[in-house]
């Protein structure tokens, strides 16, 4: 029996909502049976119809949706929240209150207080709550994680990561007000722009690969151009709980870069590098040996890494499939729980606790910058 899920957001040609939908459907573990896709009534109906949702399960707002779905014997098992940042908390709280599991886009909420409240609520009610930190779920990342966990590159000493994009620079030139509008408005986006929007992805990705937690950080948040209300670029120095030093650069105005995440993990015996532009490969170096390129689905990978792939070597599983990997982990866990079995150990997803860590990371960065770029303990 498949899981049933609902989607809040995604109508109105928004970007990430439809990606959530594809991700959840991809491996035939769940079906979309309800939604509140947009507050525009006719667009909502149209979207729902296109996506095969029956009319009476297309709701005008999330409150009614949570209420009605919780009453139905065939109500949704979980909801996917793909709305702008400032609405995540209220929507998630509402569904949790109606005993519906949640998968929420990042950031989890605008403040760590809200995030912790959601986590507490989910735990109390024994509900599963995932957060979609996509980049940690590209197929080859599991190989990196296993290698580091197994000491293949020794003790992690240095982490250097960047996430440059240029959509904001382009939007400013073209006067495009689509994404730019809400992401640069603190009322919707929160206390931070780039650091919250993309810095958190770096924070999670490094954590996913290394298992390391940030102990303290020093951040410089930049408003480029100066008229911006929130940061569009940031530089962050970090120290991890094992003493490893880190450095992040995030930018939404780095012209010539689309979504060019690059993570370099340096250990005392070797190094691993991954870049989003070539998502199915890993650059692995053991000290004093030639660097090697690892690719997906190959025999020489760890078993759990091989288990991430759906198709043969050399064929790229991209952004949609990374999303599908998160939903696969999430749905597998939920189905396993229902069947009172153990979930597949090869599949995973980011939990609400990771979402809280992400918000705290952002708050620390904002605090550090506000205080004149000083070290802030996590």
């Amino acid at each position, binding site marked *: 029996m498949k899981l049933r899920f609902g989607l809040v957001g995604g109508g109105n040609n928004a*970007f990430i909502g439809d990606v959530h939908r594809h991700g959840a459907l991809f491996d035939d573990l769940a079906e979309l049976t309800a939604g509140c896709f947009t507050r525009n009534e006719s667009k909502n109906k149209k979207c729902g119809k296109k996506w095969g949702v029956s009319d009476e399960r297309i709701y005008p707002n999330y409150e009614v949706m949570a209420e009605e779905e919780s009453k139905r014997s065939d109500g949704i098992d979980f909801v996917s929240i793909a709305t702008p940042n400032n609405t995540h908390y209220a929507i998630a709280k509402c569904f949790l209150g109606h005993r519906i599991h949640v998968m929420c886009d990042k950031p989890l909420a605008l403040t760590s207080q809200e995030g912790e409240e959601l986590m507490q609520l989910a735990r109390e009610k024994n509900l599963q709550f995932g957060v979609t930190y996509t980049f940690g779920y590209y197929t080859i990342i599991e190989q990196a994680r296993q290698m580091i966990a197994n000491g293949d590159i020794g003790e992690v000493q240095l982490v250097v990561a960047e996430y440059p994009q240029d959509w904001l620079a382009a939007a400013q030139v073209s006067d495009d007000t689509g994404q730019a509008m809400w992401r640069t408005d603190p009322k919707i986006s929160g206390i931070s722009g780039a650091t919250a929007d993309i810095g958190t992805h770096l924070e999670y990705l490094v954590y996913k690969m290394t298992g390391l937690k940030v102990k303290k950080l020093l951040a410089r948040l930049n408003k480029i151009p100066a008229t911006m209300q929130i940061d569009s670029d940031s530089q962050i120095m970090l120290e991890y709980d094992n003493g490893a030093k880190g450095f992040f650069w995030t930018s939404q105005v780095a012209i010539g870069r689309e979504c060019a995440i690059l993570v370099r993990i340096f250990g005392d015996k070797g190094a691993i590098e991954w870049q989003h532009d070539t998502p199915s490969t890993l650059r692995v170096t053991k000290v004093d040996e030639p660097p090697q390129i690892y690719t997906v*689905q190959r*025999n020489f990978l760890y078993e759990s890494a091989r288990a991430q792939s759906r198709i*043969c070597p*050399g*064929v*790229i*599983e991209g*952004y949609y499939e990374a999303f599908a990997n998160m939903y696969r982990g999430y749905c597998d866990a939920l189905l396993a729980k229902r069947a009172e079995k153990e979930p597949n150990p090869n599949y995973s997803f980011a939990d609400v606790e990771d979402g809280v860590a992400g918000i705290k990371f952002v708050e620390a960065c904002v605090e550090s910058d506000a205080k004149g770029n000083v070290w802030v303990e996590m």
Partner: protein
Amino acid sequence: MKLNYGLIGGGNGGFIGSVHKKAATFDDCCVLKAGCFSRNQEANAKTGELWNVAADRLYTSYEEMAEQERKRADGIDFVSIATPNHTHFAIAKVFLENNIHVICDKPVTLDAAEAEVLHALAKEEGLLFGVAYTYANYAVLQEARRLIREGALGEVFSIIAEYPQDWVLTPTDTDVMSDWLLDLEKTGKAGCTAHIGSHLEYLMRYITGAVPERVLARFNTYPVNLRIETEAQVMIQYENNIQGLMWASIAAAGNDCGIAIRVFGSQGSLEWSHRDPDRMLYHPLNQPSQIMVSGRGYLCEEAQRLSRLPAGHPEGFYEAFANIFRNFCINLQEYKAGKRSIELGFPTIDDGLLSMKFIEACVKSNEGGNVWIEL
């Protein structure tokens, strides 16, 4: 109104069937309504349940499926064929005869004679027939086509393409590849030339518009005990003095799916690699080289159309495959609305037929001591 479709294959964990299913429904252009996923009743039922196909539209025989679906008012508009090569002809023929449009995996048949039959039948019945040449459907390649079409490369004179893989050397890596691929009776007259050479032939022709006239081919087999060629080196002579060079190998150690193509002209060249399918390198003569990226606003309309995500968010194999289905469905909707002179946006049985002629010519060339054979 979405189109209804059926799927043949995909039920026994076969690789491409599941890909067909995910690709077909990716853009919500059609709904899977019927299937013959496996000849095994149980496997068929299990797959049918997984993919929400009603029990009365699950068939263990494709002949029965074609006949029954034809009779239904809500019968499928098209069928997707994702079975081993040697069954394509019979299955496609039955569906065409029952007035159902077809999309079929490649190579479309075992030989050119069979492909001719399907080509004639599709034309006679006025049916659409698509063939799944996935690799040509990455978004940025539309920009490559435009550059060439608009003369940015000047006069094109050389097309060099390769497709190295190594799965025949690494059997345990390739549990998705099946034994039938090494059996000439099931693949047709050729091995890798049919299996992957056909992808290259289409890619080279599709991007440049070049029309192949003759080929000179050399087949090699490593490991030597196999019955089929695991490597093909092919010289191609196109119209307008364009020369092509193709290398296809399934024994090229260290290569996963390294399709690459370079097109050279008097004013510039371009290159694309499947290792980085969202990007294309454009080298205008005497100017800095450029990297063109999928999803960007500076690309032509046809390229932008094929990207679903913002630039920098990789769309891979599934999405390239989905592009074929999306274009097929758009054309089929136009057809159903009564349009007849439709500009087809997907690879057709014409392309499938040309592939078969190409493969046969390569076989003949190799057998004849690597001589030029006219297409």
